[in-house]
């Protein structure tokens, strides 16, 4: 239980720090780079490294490559939809997460399973 709380606190702090960095920079396309910063990964991998060792971290990182490809598809689709349809950001970004799940698990089944 204490490990989960620790993960929550470290994850919250690292993600907030990267998000704040993203807010500070202009132009927006450059600030957007921080939207795909390895914030969750850094918080998780640093903790996992001390608890489970390097081999475990390497296995997680291998799957993360697939997750990052899914992120690329997700962000590209969100960008295209927002530019062409001018819908509200929350429904578009939240519903597109299903696309991330589809691409991530699809690629994982095809390439890594």
């Amino acid at each position, binding site marked *: 239980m204490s490990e989960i709380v620790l993960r929550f606190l470290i994850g919250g702090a690292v993600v907030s720090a990267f998000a704040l960095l993203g807010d500070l920079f202009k132009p927006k396309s450059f600030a957007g780079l921080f939207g795909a*910063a390895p914030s969750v990964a850094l918080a998780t991998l640093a903790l996992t490294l001390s608890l489970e060792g390097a081999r475990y971290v390497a296995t997680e*990182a291998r799957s993360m490559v697939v997750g990052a490809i899914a992120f690329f598809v997700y962000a590209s689709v969100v960008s295209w939809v927002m530019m062409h349809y001018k819908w509200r950001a929350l429904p578009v970004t939240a519903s597109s997460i299903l696309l991330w799940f589809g691409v991530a698990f699809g690629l994982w089944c095809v390439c890594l399973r």
Partner: protein
Amino acid sequence: MKIHVELDVVRQTKWYEYALRFLFGGLITATAGIIAKKFGPEIGGLFLAFPAIFPASATLIENHERERKARLGLKGTKRAAQAVSVAAAGAAIGSIGLAAFALAVWKTIPNHSPWLALLGAILVWMTLSVLLWQIRKRFAPLRRRIKRAPVPNE
């Protein structure tokens, strides 16, 4: 436009917007840990690249853009959507750097000092992301000119 820092945004952002991002960041990090414990690191690793706070950040950008336009008496719907689109395009570039970060960790961490490997991977993410952003910035005006150019008669 050159890369610069705008500190005004810190004052514009409300406390609950910071709290929301802390909550989402903390929740996804804890969840990724729980998933890795339950289903193994092969599945847990996927969630290290989950777009956890992107919806919150995009909503924040949209709200700030709308507020800015509202002060000028405008609705700002189109401008806000464009701002989110541009930020998402930046995130798409950043995600290529994110994949390179993961690749660097995967390949280097078993045979090198783990902390150095993590540090090296951060440098890979940062360098590649900025480099790709510069390339896109350089070629975007050229692409726009090609699109606008009249199609010659064959």
